[in-house]
Structures are given as structure tokens and as C-alpha cells.
């Protein structure tokens, strides 16, 4: 079972674009085909990630968590150590190079929580692109620190004040921008979703995670992991680590979705889990969506901004259908508890997204043998979540600090 990086994966994927996007997608697909066949592209890609982002990221043995759960050995792939703090950097570096090959001068992107926006602004600065980030007004309000950094990195952040004023409005606006500037602009989509070739392109770029992990496992542990667990927003970090192991049937692959307030509530972001998502076509591609019986998208919820999404990578939908990947769901509360435990036991502050994968590992480890190995993909660091952690742990001192900051806003001395 080898992925072909095609437009369809089984019945999932495709390209359902307004005609106006036909040209840009044709150009993008052709360039993708070209660089995929060009080994030099991959070498340049690896080199930048090495020298700029510190790849390969290490695998840390979570000795204390392993001892705590008394089961499988827990290993952690440390995507949090990447430049900008998550696996997102791979995709933006890769598409940045692609855009250079296409002779583009400008990168645009949508962003929800702001992580992808910061990554795009970063790579735009490094590779010399001008940069516009679209962000719903509500998201921009919630994620002011990220907006602040995007601007300081030189990006223009446009806040969308129409419609839902969240991610989907930002996507529409970004597409609108793209079709108005097809010559000089590349739209840098943030995950393995959307119309072909984005799912293939992003999955291919992120496959560097699994390639590294396989090499590291063989070198340091002389075997492959029993299970690999990763959280699923759009699917880029999970596919990133899974792909290299798909052919190795003996390796279990677990994709973890956000169960939000609970699997039995309506406030979640489950799509892969049986009976939660149904096949639909929206935002340009066919996959499992969290929608009603008439095809209207429903409101998702997760404590982790990056998991709070209506669709999912068609590649994941396919691999789950084929039963090559299992899926699981973790609630907000379980994720928070897992995050706390990981901080205390391993000194690692996980992103709330990644905490979902950890929580699933903590459920599975005690049931497994001590000879088994669970490899968790820790997709990002949790510093970015301080406002969430602070609010959610109901930390009194933190709240007082914020109040005082507000009271004493000082003027620039300079």
C-alpha cells in the first residue's frame, strides 16, 4: 500500500474549485509534479530545514511517563523543537521553495489560531516574499500575540470583518486575493486538505517527519514502533509521521481527533470517527465532514484551535476507510490532563493539539506490553497556549498579572 500522491485516494479527494481557480491550480499541480520528480528539490528542502529549523527533530524517550503507566515504552517525536514551534514549518518551507520555482513574489495564507500565519510570515521573511495573511476578526482578537508577531515579521494581516469572521471567511478572502493575483502570488495552504494538489503536496512535504522517525527508530532502537499516535486537525502532522510506515503493516497507526466536550455531545471536531463525519464535498474537495444530513457544515469545537476544523485530509479519510489507520477521540479535559502530566513528568510543554495524541497514548500504554513501543508525534509546543492554559487552569496569579498589565500599559520610551 503505497501512496501515489494523486488527486484521488479511493473515493476521497478531487478538485472541486470554482472555475476561476482553474488556472492557478493547473500551474500548481504541474509544478508539484515537476518538483516531486526532481531529487534536487527534496535535497534543498531538507537542507533548509536542517540549517534553519534544526531538523532532524529528536526522539525523546519519555522515561518517567513510561514508568508511570507501567506498559509500553513511550517515545516522543519532538516537532515542538522546530523553528516557530511546530511541524508547520516543513510545509511552509516546502511551498515557499515551490513558489520560488514558480517565480512568485508574494505569499498569502489563511490562518485560524495564527500558528500557520506566523509560519508563513516567517518563511516569507526568510525567502524574501511579500506576505499577506487573512484572519477572521474574531480569531485575530483571540490570538493577538500571533498577529503581533506576524506583523513584526513583516506580513500584512488583514482582518475579515464579514460573515462568521473566522477561518472560513479568511479562506474565501485568500482565494479571492489569489484569483486576482495569479501571476505573482502563491496561496500557501496550511494542511493536507483542500483541492488537489494540496493534500498530496502537503502530505509529501510533511513525510519528512516519518522518514526521520524511521531512521531514528532503526538506529536507536533497532526496531519500528508498535504504534504511532498523532493528533488530527487537517491531517498534516499525522500523515507526516504515518506515511513512511504505511507499508509496514506491523506498525499500528492511530489518528486522534478532538472529542471536545465529549463524544456524546455536539461540541466536538470528529470526522474520522465512525458515525461522526459523513462523506461530502466542500471547500474544494471530497472527504469526511462534520455536517448535517443536508450537507450543511456544523459548528465544531475543540480546546485546541488547530483541531477545530470541519473537514479532514482525504488521504486520512481513505486510510481510515481502508482500516490502515485507526482513529480515536480525546476530550478537552483529557487533553488538558495529559498536558499537565507531560509537563510534570517530562518537562515538556505540549501544544494542546499534541496533548490529544499524548492522552491517547496514555490510554493505550498501560494495556500494552513493556516490550512494545508507542511513538507519539508531539506536533508543537504549548507556549502559544498560555492564554488557554491560564484561563483553563483558572490560575489566579496569572489573571492578576493580566489585569495589572492592562492597568499599566506604558508608552514607548523610544
Amino acid at each position, binding site marked *: 500500500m503505497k501512496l501515489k500522491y494523486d488527486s484521488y485516494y479511493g473515493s476521497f479527494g478531487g*478538485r472541486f474549485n*470554482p472555475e476561476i481557480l482553474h488556472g492557478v491550480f493547473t500551474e500548481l499541480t504541474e509544478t508539484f509534479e515537476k518538483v516531486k520528480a526532481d531529487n534536487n528539490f527534496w535535497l534543498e528542502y531538507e537542507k533548509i530545514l536542517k540549517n534553519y529549523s534544526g531538523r532532524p527533530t529528536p526522539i525523546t524517550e519519555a522515561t518517567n511517563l513510561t514508568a508511570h503507566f507501567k506498559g509500553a515504552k513511550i517515545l516522543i517525536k519532538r516537532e515542538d523543537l522546530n523553528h516557530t514551534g511546530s511541524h508547520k514549518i516543513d510545509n511552509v518551507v516546502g511551498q515557499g521553495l515551490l513558489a520560488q520555482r514558480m517565480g512568485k513574489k508574494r505569499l498569502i495564507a489563511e490562518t485560524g489560531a495564527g500558528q500557520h500565519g506566523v509560519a508563513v510570515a516567517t518563511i516569507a521573511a526568510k525567502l524574501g516574499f511579500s506576505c499577506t495573511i487573512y484572519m477572521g476578526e474574531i480569531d485575530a482578537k483571540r490570538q493577538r500575540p500571533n498577529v503581533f508577531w506576524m506583523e513584526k515579521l513583516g506580513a500584512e494581516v488583514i482582518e475579515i470583518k464579514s460573515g462568521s469572521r473566522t477561518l472560513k471567511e479568511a479562506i474565501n478572502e485568500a482565494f479571492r486575493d489569489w484569483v486576482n493575483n495569479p501571476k505573482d502570488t502563491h496561496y500557501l495552504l496550511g494542511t493536507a486538505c483542500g483541492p488537489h494538489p494540496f493534500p498530496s503536496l502537503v502530505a509529501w512535504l510533511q513525510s519528512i517527519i516519518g522518514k526521520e522517525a524511521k531512521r531514528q527508530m532503526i538506529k536507536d532502537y533497532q526496531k519500528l514502533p508498535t504504534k504511532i499516535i498523532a493528533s488530527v486537525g487537517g491531517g498534516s502532522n499525522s500523515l507526516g509521521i504515518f506515511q513512511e510506515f504505511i507499508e509496514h503493516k506491523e506498525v499500528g497507526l492511530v489518528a486522534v481527533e478532538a472529542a471536545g466536550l465529549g463524544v456524546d455531545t455536539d461540541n466536538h471536531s470528529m470526522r474520522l470517527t465512525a458515525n461522526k463525519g459523513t462523506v461530502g*464535498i466542500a*471547500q474544494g474537495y471530497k472527504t469526511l465532514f462534520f455536517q448535517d444530513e*443536508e450537507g450543511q457544515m456544523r459548528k465544531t469545537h475543540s480546546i485546541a484551535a488547530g483541531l477545530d476544523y470541519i473537514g479532514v485530509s482525504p488521504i486520512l479519510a481513505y486510510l481510515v476507510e481502508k482500516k490502515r489507520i485507526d482513529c480515536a477521540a480525546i476530550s478537552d479535559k483529557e487533553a488538558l490532563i495529559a498536558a499537565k502530566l507531560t509537563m510534570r513528568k517530562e518537562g515538556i510543554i505540549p501544544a494542546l493539539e499534541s496533548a490529544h495524541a499524548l492522552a491517547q497514548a496514555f490510554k493505550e500504554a498501560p494495556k500494552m506490553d513493556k516490550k512494545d513501543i508507542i511513538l507519539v508525534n508531539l506536533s508543537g509546543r504549548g507556549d502559544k497556549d498560555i492564554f488557554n492554559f491560564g484561563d483553563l487552569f483558572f490560575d489566579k496569579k496569572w489573571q492578576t498579572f493580566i489585569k495589572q498589565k492592562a492597568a499599566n500599559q506604558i508608552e514607548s520610551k523610544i
Partner: protein
Amino acid sequence: MINSDFLSSYIKKERQAKPILIMAHLVLGYPDFKTNHEQVDVMVKAGADIIEMQIPFSEPIADGPVIAKANQLSLARGTKIQDCLDFAQKVTTRHPKKAFIFMSYVNILFMRGIANIISQSEKAGIKGWIVPDLPPEEADVYLAECAKHKISPIFIYAPTHSLARLKTLANYSKGMIYAVARKGITGGKTNFNQELIERLTIYRKIAKKPLAVGFGISQAEDVDFLIGKADIVVIGSKLIEVLDEGGLTALDLFLRKIRGNH
């Protein structure tokens, strides 16, 4: 084939009397179905030739802010697909001389079942369908069902298209070709200029079908400009704005002003 295409014949016939036809757009369930009835009545009386009825969708990626918001509010009021089909049945019966078409996004058709919704559309008196996020490459079933049920599948021309793409779309489109006047998405400002004229000339040559021009038409002058260059003008966002601001009376006045000139 040509004989089975009601919409082509209808347009050809109407065009003999009028320099340009008007296709008026509304979002079903917005502001509500009762108003929709009156809206259609006003449109028909004021001289619209084709009524384009949009079945609302939660992710209207090809629509601008005005129509997107109408979609959202209609859904918030609980609009269902069946309501839209029932509504179509009523208005096509009430206005048998006019042509009605549906517009929606592919997921609405897909979730209902393409065969189901196309056959239901035919029964409801609908003559054509526009699905902006369904390119012909993904449209096998849709095209087959449309053919079976005498529904014209209408495809869209964009300013960014290559000649090859224009030809491909012409092959699949029935009834008319819907040309987008400007880059970008519905509801903004269009430049009615030389470049547009040249584009429309090329479209005509390639399409060999009635040409509808939409997106950004907001005043009588825009319509004037298009006479001789297109067969149909499509008015969308502007009609919703007019209705939102001045109600049915304003809508009537606006359409008459446009129609009155011709």
C-alpha cells in the same frame, strides 16, 4: 441535443424581442420564503426573463459577502432543500412563461443524491442548474442526470481561462455560458472596459451559445454597456442590497429602471 435544450430555445426566442435579457438572482429562504414569493413576482413583473434561485449552503466559497451572508441567515432560519424544491414548484407554476434555474454548491446535490435532486428539479419546473464548485471533470453523474432530465447544466467562464479551457467548458455547458466579468468573487466593482469587450468577443466565438455576464452589475449603465456584447445580464448581490435597503418597492423600481431603458 439542441432540440432538447429548453433554455437555449427560450433565450433565443426572448432575445428576438429584447436587446438583452435579465437574469435576476435570489437566495432562497432569505429573508424568508414569503418575501421570496413577492420578490419573484416583482422580478417577473418588472421584466426579468430568467430567475436564478440559490439554494443556501453553509460554505458558499464562490460568493461575496452579501450573498454569503444571505446564505448564512437563510440557514439560520432553518431553510431545507425540500423547502426550496417546493418553492420552485410553486413559482414555476405561477409564472409558466419565465425560465427558472437553480444555483447551489455541489455538496447540496451530493448529499441529497444527484439523481434525486436533478429529477426533483425537473418535476419542479426548473430548466437549468449552476454549480460553481463542480467542474466538468468531476461531473460525470451530474451531466448524465441533467441530460436525462432535460436540465441545462450551466458552466462558468472566468477571465483567467485559457482558450483550451473555454472550449472544454463550452462543450459541457447547455442553455448558456455564464461569464464572470471580473476576476475575484461576486459582489465587487467591475471595470467595464476594452479588455472586457475583447474577452466577450472571444467567448462568443468559442462558446457558440447564449452568453450571460454576471458579477458586479449594479446600474443601468452596466447593462447598456453589455448590449450587443452579451445575451443576458445577471444581477445578484445588487438585488439583495436593494431589497435589504428599500424592500420590494425599491426592488421593483430598480429592475424597472434597468428594463425601462431597453
